[in-house]
């Protein structure tokens, strides 16, 4: 089984007497209400999804992550996992803080450090831009003024909209072992599957024992598919076109940051912690708009020969009328006039009945499921 990132799978989920003792202290301690995304982060830290992190980053680690894409101890890490607080909250906290979600205690944090940070440095370091057109930058600009660092111990699970598909790294590692998978390829997604995705997954699966389809559930931008639509679409796809012995679906409760290359590395590290040996990186992975060159998310892996998971780089697949099948530019010699690409925009038009290429873009079972939702996209803004 692949060694977790940093050497050890973090497990800070309190159980039994330890948990009981902690719960009895909760009413004495100051409390901080978290957003759903932050509650997810806490849970991801405690259950080892973010191994080797044991808590929210302190100043030294944060600076190292922003400047070098590594923790202060040189372990690859590209996305700051931080907890922002206001001056008011900072003045009220002592050595322990109870982190709550919807009023319920989620975790106890040992406060190690409260510090100021530079928003511009954060935006540039993670997203490579300060443009507010970038949803990540917009979020950074909306963060509170201080950061609090320290280890977290989980008291209660964060309620999940998809309990049936929520697995911890401990659980997926046992699952992969029981399935007899020695090599597992992870697939990150925030989309309903079109036939291009299916070919990428199946091409990778040809060379490994198992496929771990791991959609991200959490805050997304308007225009993205809603979480429940993505899950239902994958259920339809897997039911009809995948083998139970070689593919599993589980959700990852984590917000999308649209940090392109840096987020691709983060996505790979997280899947390594789940027990994957390989990870699929496609065109414009975790990108948004035109902020990142199309293959920047593949090139960044050159800086991380020590990451401990094998990235599998894919070019886009398309349908070629002349080849009579789904191919990619490495194997198809024909011109644009024969090719039907699988872009998200085109998929959207197909679903609205504006394009004529339904059958080659998306499986009919998947299309039917998506159409059963009157509004399949995240609204707002």
């Amino acid at each position: 089984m692949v060694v977790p990132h940093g050497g050890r799978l973090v497990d800070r989920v309190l159980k039994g007497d330890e948990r009981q003792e902690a719960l009895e202290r909760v009413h004495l301690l100051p409390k901080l209400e978290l957003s759903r995304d932050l509650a997810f982060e806490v849970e991801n830290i405690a259950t080892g999804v973010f191994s080797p992190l044991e808590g929210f980053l302190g100043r030294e680690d944060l600076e190292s992550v922003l400047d070098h894409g590594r923790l202060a101890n040189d372990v690859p890490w590209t996305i700051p996992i931080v907890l922002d607080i206001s001056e008011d909250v900072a003045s009220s906290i002592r050595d322990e803080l109870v982190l709550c979600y919807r009023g319920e205690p989620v975790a106890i944090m040992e406060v190690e450090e409260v510090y100021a940070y530079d928003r511009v440095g954060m935006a540039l370091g993670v997203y490579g831009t300060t443009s507010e057109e970038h949803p990540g930058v917009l979020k950074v600009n909306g963060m509170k003024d201080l950061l609090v660092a320290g280890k977290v111990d989980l008291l209660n699970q964060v309620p999940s909209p998809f309990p049936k598909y929520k697995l911890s790294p401990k659980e997926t590692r046992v699952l992969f072992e029981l399935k007899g998978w020695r090599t597992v390829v992870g697939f990150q997604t925030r989309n309903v599957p079109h036939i291009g995705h299916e070919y990428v997954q199946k091409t990778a699966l040809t060379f490994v024992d198992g496929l771990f389809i791991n959609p991200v559930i959490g805050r997304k931008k308007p225009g993205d598919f809603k979480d429940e639509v993505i899950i239902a679409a994958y259920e339809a796809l897997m039911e009809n076109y995948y083998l139970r012995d070689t593919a599993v679906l589980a959700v990852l409760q984590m917000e999308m940051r649209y940090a392109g290359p840096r987020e691709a590395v983060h996505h790979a590290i997280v899947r390594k912690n789940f027990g994957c040996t390989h990870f699929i990186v496609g065109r414009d992975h975790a990108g948004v708009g035109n902020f990142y060159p199309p293959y920047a998310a593949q090139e960044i892996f050159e800086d991380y020969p020590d990451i401990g998971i094998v990235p599998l780089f894919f070019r886009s697949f398309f349908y070629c009328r002349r080849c009579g099948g789904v191919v990619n530019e490495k194997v198809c010699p024909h011109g644009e006039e024969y090719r039907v690409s699988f872009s998200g925009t085109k998929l959207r038009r197909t679903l609205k009945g504006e394009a004529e290429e339904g059958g080659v873009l998306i499986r009919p079972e998947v299309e039917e499921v998506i159409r059963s939702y009157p509004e399949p996209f995240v609204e707002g803004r």
Partner: protein
Amino acid sequence: MDRTKEVKIPSSLYRAIEEKIEGSNFPSVSEFVTYAVRKALKELSGYREQLSEEEKEEIKDRLRALGYL
């Protein structure tokens, strides 16, 4: 004391260790190498030894209940 066996390492590495452990708690290069190798072994054996049999059974039950197995 365990019985010991000889292991060969490059002389340059030996010298580097000698320098590094000077003034530390390691009495000799052998002690340091034993420590470092134990640590590396533990990391390589990785995850498995972290889970008790009981915990593993619980996880199996949950996976079964969810339909994964």
